[in-house]
């Protein structure tokens, strides 16, 4: 009965997809042979439609079936955990946010891709995204150095600096190269409540943590000294980190709306889409919606550059990618089928089709293809530039706890509940405590003068 319902629904899905993909009946991008049907766990995200289209092409070309279990963003982790923790996994492939992958790698819940097929190799054009698909079990760290390939990026997101080309040009301002440029530009452009100079997330939690860390990296500051080598000495209360925090507070307070302390990604996108903000720090994946006249009043007006340099001269950006991995408790034929799809998905043609339909490709050669010349892909150069310096952050088992500490203390500094020095000292003490409790080699810098 249940089986029956599933079959009906799957074939319905296929029929619906087949319709749109009918025009692209052609030789497969990669020869994957006949494979059993698989189920993919995937979240409801702005790039999901692009992924769905590409899956449709795969089904069309290969005749293999894929069922997409698309769940709300807030439900993916729960479903993925349930799937791997008992019995046989209902999913054969799971797309996971980079922050969550550590838990799944470290817990041994995913099959290393080479154990499914020893011959599997990622093409060299596939971007590494800070080695987020590799896991070195000895070091408990994501690195290709001695690590096994557990998953790879289906969508790599980084923040870009979006700016209104028309507004900056009119004011005679060049696209900012440093955060001080941003500050200077916003001093000229800021005209509240008609126009805010620059917007970024100040919201407690992941929002401020993620956006601020780009500035932190640009000031050459860090959270812990050298986690890759096992040194978890907390360095978040360094003078460089304080400079980064003061700069960030300055940016948000001087250039943003009065509710800077509660501004989330949705608010930032809303301010840019309505034309109320001249510049903003937003994910690449949002670009497509700014070009959609149903969602944006600034179609064709937003341009992007890589996130600016700090006073230290360095660039900084944090990677927020989605990785696809295969659960250890899926059956062997299913695992092979899932890997076959992955092999197909990283081909140039598949990535090209993914990008054309609104996804962010993971291959460098797509970024330099004919697509990059089209106006709607004008974000591509900035994205590729960002890949040179973008990093993974909080890549340890305690990452979620550290995020909660930073997310709160940074926000408190922003809204003036604490000085920046006190916020960072407090965070350093709390993070050191977290590392100590989990048995890391840790310590902290001398406190900043408060």
């Amino acid at each position: 009965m249940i089986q029956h319902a599933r079959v009906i629904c799957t074939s319905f899905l296929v029929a619906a997809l087949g319709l749109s993909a009918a025009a692209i009946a052609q030789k497969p991008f990669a020869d994957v042979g006949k494979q059993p049907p698989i189920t993919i766990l995937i979240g409801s995200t702005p790039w999901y439609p692009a992924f769905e289209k590409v899956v449709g092409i795969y089904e069309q070309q290969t005749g293999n079936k894929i069922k997409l279990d698309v769940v709300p963003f807030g439900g993916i982790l729960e479903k993925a955990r349930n799937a791997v923790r008992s019995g046989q996994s209902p999913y054969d492939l799971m797309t996971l946010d980079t922050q969550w992958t550590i838990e799944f790698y470290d817990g041994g819940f995913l099959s290393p891709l080479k154990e499914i097929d020893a011959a599997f190799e990622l093409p060299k054009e596939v971007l590494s995204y800070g080695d987020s698909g590799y896991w070195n079990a000895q070091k408990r760290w994501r690195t290709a150095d001695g690590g096994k390939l557990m998953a790879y990026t289906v969508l790599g997101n980084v923040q870009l600096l979006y700016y209104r080309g028309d507004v900056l040009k009119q004011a005679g301002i060049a696209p900012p190269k440093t955060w001080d440029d941003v500050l200077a530009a916003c001093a000229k452009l800021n005209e509240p409540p008609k126009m805010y100079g620059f917007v970024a997330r100040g919201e407690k939690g992941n929002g401020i943590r993620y956006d601020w860390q780009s500035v932190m990296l640009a000031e050459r500051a860090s959270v812990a000294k050298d986690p890759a080598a096992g040194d978890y000495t907390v360095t978040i209360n360094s003078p460089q980190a304080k400079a980064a925090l003061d700069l960030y507070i300055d940016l948000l307070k001087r250039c943003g709306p009065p509710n800077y302390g509660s501004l989330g990604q949705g608010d930032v996108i809303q301010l840019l889409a309505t034309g109320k903000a001249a510049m903003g720090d937003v994910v690449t994946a949002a670009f497509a919606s700014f070009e959609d006249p149903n969602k944006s009043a600034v179609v064709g007006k937003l341009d992007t550059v890589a996130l600016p340099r700090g006073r230290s001269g360095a660039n900084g950006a944090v990677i927020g990618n989605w990785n696809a991995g295969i659960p250890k408790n899926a059956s062997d034929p299913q695992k092979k089928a899932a890997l076959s799809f992955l092999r197909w998905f990283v081909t140039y043609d598949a990535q090209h089709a993914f990008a054309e339909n609104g996804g962010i490709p993971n291959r460098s050669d797509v970024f330099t293809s004919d697509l990059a010349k089209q106006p709607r892909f004008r974000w591509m150069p900035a994205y590729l530039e960002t890949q040179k310096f973008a990093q993974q952050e909080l890549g340890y088992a305690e990452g979620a706890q550290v995020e909660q500490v930073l997310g709160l203390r940074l926000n408190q500094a922003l809204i003036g509940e604490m000085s920046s020095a006190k916020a960072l000292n407090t965070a350093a003490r709390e993070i050191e405590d977290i590392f100590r409790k989990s048995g890391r080699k840790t310590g902290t810098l001398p406190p900043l003068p408060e």
Partner: protein
Amino acid sequence: MNTSATALSLPRSATTTPATAVGGGWIGTTLLALAVAAVLGPFAWILTASFKYQIAIYSGEWPFTPTLSNYAEVLFGRRSDFVGNVVNSLIVASASTALVLVVGTLAAYSLQRFRWPVWVSAGFLGWTLVFHMIPVMTLIGPWYVAFRELGLYDTRIALILTHVTINLPMTVWLMRAFFRELPPEIEEAALVDGCRPLEAFRRVTLPLVIPGLIASGILAFIFSWNEFPVALSLTSRDLATVPVAIARFAQQYEIQHSQMAAASIVSTIPAVILMALGQRFIVRGLTLGAVK
């Protein structure tokens, strides 16, 4: 209280409800108008949002050019299973409501009328209340494992059973309160007249708590209708319910307010109709029995 059983069990005429004596007056009318406006305000906002493009919602545009595209996308979009989601929700919510009403009302009546030892009655009532306090997120893991072992993962049965369990505490406590309001003499009189216990319960007591049954039913229906975490964990895409589908509009980087609003409106209509039907079913079924 020395009222006769027959006087109370007679159906009341609509005009002589007790509260007519207390409510009313211009203060009451003003307050009521304010309350209805306060309820309808945000609801009207949702309704207009469902006819707007996202950008018009973002900028708070007024007046605006209406569009039906959100409804088209929600109902007929290639990626949308929303009609199926509504059907799932209707099945799960009605089945779990019917079950919880039967099971819960029987239990409430039993606890109120029969002399159970204290450890049974207090134990059961306390257990349901404490269970109701547990944050649902901590229950999901074990339920997932259990239903998977039983082969009931991704079935409506699993969802119906869990929803009955989640709603049982409130139903039992509520119905118990309504049974408590009834003087025991009514039923005793019926028993003296030769009614069997079950008959007395069905024909004399139940018709007197119809308002309670309706309120409990509406609440159980709504809580099942809007239950998110369990529905998410125990089903996959084919059996997803309305709140899971609506949560899909709250995406990682952007919330699709326009479609979310349209989906909220679309899902409200069958729910309201079904609740009205259910209510009529309860009233008909019980009053017919009572008149005999």
